[in-house]
């Protein structure tokens, strides 16, 4: 993997979200979340608590409820068009080649795709030997790498990841975490995850979401992409898991 991956074109803004989300008049959650500029925030919580809803709210996607509150970027610019999104499902289009999938954003906007950039990105994620292949010929890990390249092709300063590694086997997941950390360096990242180990390894900031609201959780004092078996990482992971089990009960 080559070093010195391009920093995002514009400086990555931090994002603040405060307010209340209701579905059919019933409060689903109160939220007070701040995503620090250029850092990874991992958002954890039990299923159904509204983690993905937060991500969808900021992205401006349908949530099936009403949000009252504000979300702002630290540079006070609108967030539209500055966030790229990667979901648990790779969402590769089966009829397009890997290369065409990476460029799909440009086609959807009616722009001419920058093939050179796409090639570079596929090289970065280690798929340069597979550019012409269809997604169904790739393994799960390769497909997620293609999806990551597609996210990078959008070149947005903010990246939202909704459990993108959860369906991968443990080894591939660790590889993907390393790759994502490297290629998304300098961007503001929100990672929704169920996995305390993933959060302990990757997060600059861990935010736990429960019916009581959002609260930040202390992260290990070591630099991110922490050693999986370092005592601080394991300690953070264990305590986080304990806490999550407590609130889930």
């Amino acid at each position, binding site marked *: 993997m080559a070093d010195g991956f391009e920093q995002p074109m514009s400086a990555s803004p931090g994002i603040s979200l405060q307010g209340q989300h209701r579905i059919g008049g019933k409060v689903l959650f109160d939220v007070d979340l701040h995503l620090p500029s250029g850092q990874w925030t991992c958002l954890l919580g039990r299923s159904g608590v509204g983690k993905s809803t937060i991500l969808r709210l900021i*992205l401006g996607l349908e949530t099936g409820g009403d949000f009252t509150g504000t979300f702002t970027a630290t540079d006070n610019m609108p967030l539209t068009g500055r966030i790229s999104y990667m979901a648990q*499902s790779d*969402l590769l289009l089966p009829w397009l080649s890997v290369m065409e999938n990476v460029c799909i954003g440009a086609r*959807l906007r009616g722009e001419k795709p920058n093939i050179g950039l796409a090639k570079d990105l596929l090289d970065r994620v280690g798929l340069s030997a597979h550019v012409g292949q269809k997604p169904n010929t790739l393994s799960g890990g390769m497909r997620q790498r293609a999806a990551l390249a597609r996210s990078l092709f959008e070149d947005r300063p903010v990246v939202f990841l909704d459990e993108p590694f959860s369906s991968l086997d443990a080894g591939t997941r660790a590889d993907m975490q390393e790759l994502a950390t490297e290629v998304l360096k300098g961007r503001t990242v929100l990672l929704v995850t169920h996995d305390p180990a993933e959060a302990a390894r990757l997060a600059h900031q861990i935010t736990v979401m429960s019916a009581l609201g959002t609260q930040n959780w202390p992260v290990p004092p070591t630099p991110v992409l922490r050693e999986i078996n370092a005592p601080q990482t394991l300690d953070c992971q264990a305590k986080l898991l304990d806490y999550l089990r407590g609130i889930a009960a």
Partner: protein
Amino acid sequence: MRLRDILLALLVGLGLWQLIVVITEAPHYILPSPWRVAQAAYKSRAIIADNAWVTAAEVMLGLLIGTLLGVATAIQLALSKTTERLLLPILVFTQAVPVFALAPLLTLWFGYGMGSKIVMTVLIIYFPVTSAFHDGLMRIDSGYRDLSLSMGAAKLNFMRHIQIPNALPSLGTGLRLAAVYAPIGAVIGEWVGASKGLGYLMLLANGRAKIDLMFASLIVLACLTVILHISVGVLATRLTRFAQGSSLK
């Protein structure tokens, strides 16, 4: 279906037919033997070919126009909620009118030539094609929609690059149905009033007690339908394979 199986089924059918003729001792003007029908077919090959060509042209043109109209309607329905709300109930309601009952009216409006038969065929296949393709356009993984929105996709580009390719297998299903209905439409149109076509030839032969010629026409019609069914089947399979990203070979 393998060629050997088809030939075997054909031989068994012919054998049964001959058996019934022998057992019932039916006169040839009620049930001619396969051999007599073959002789009639050979003797009248020119007139059968002339009329078969007309029916085939009606079916093909009807299929083509009906498919184009159906595809255009389905896309319009999928693009505009207002159109969908207004047009879909009307479309469903029109299905309550038996199209065959319209045949005399179509002959009155479009004459005894090919026009009325093509319109009849179009009317019969329009709904299955529209309905199947519209269903395919709407049945799309919501993740694709979210991803496209986050990429700033234009609605028409989303339709062109994602919705339509994704719905091609459904279009294939609609076409398979259309291939079954189309010859029925053309022949019924010919029965009601025509000066050419296999349906016309069957009525003519029946009127002159040339039952062997009637059977010969019927068999040619069945062959046309089978060829159409197989060709459309191949096309539908290719559409599905394309959408799944499988090899087309």
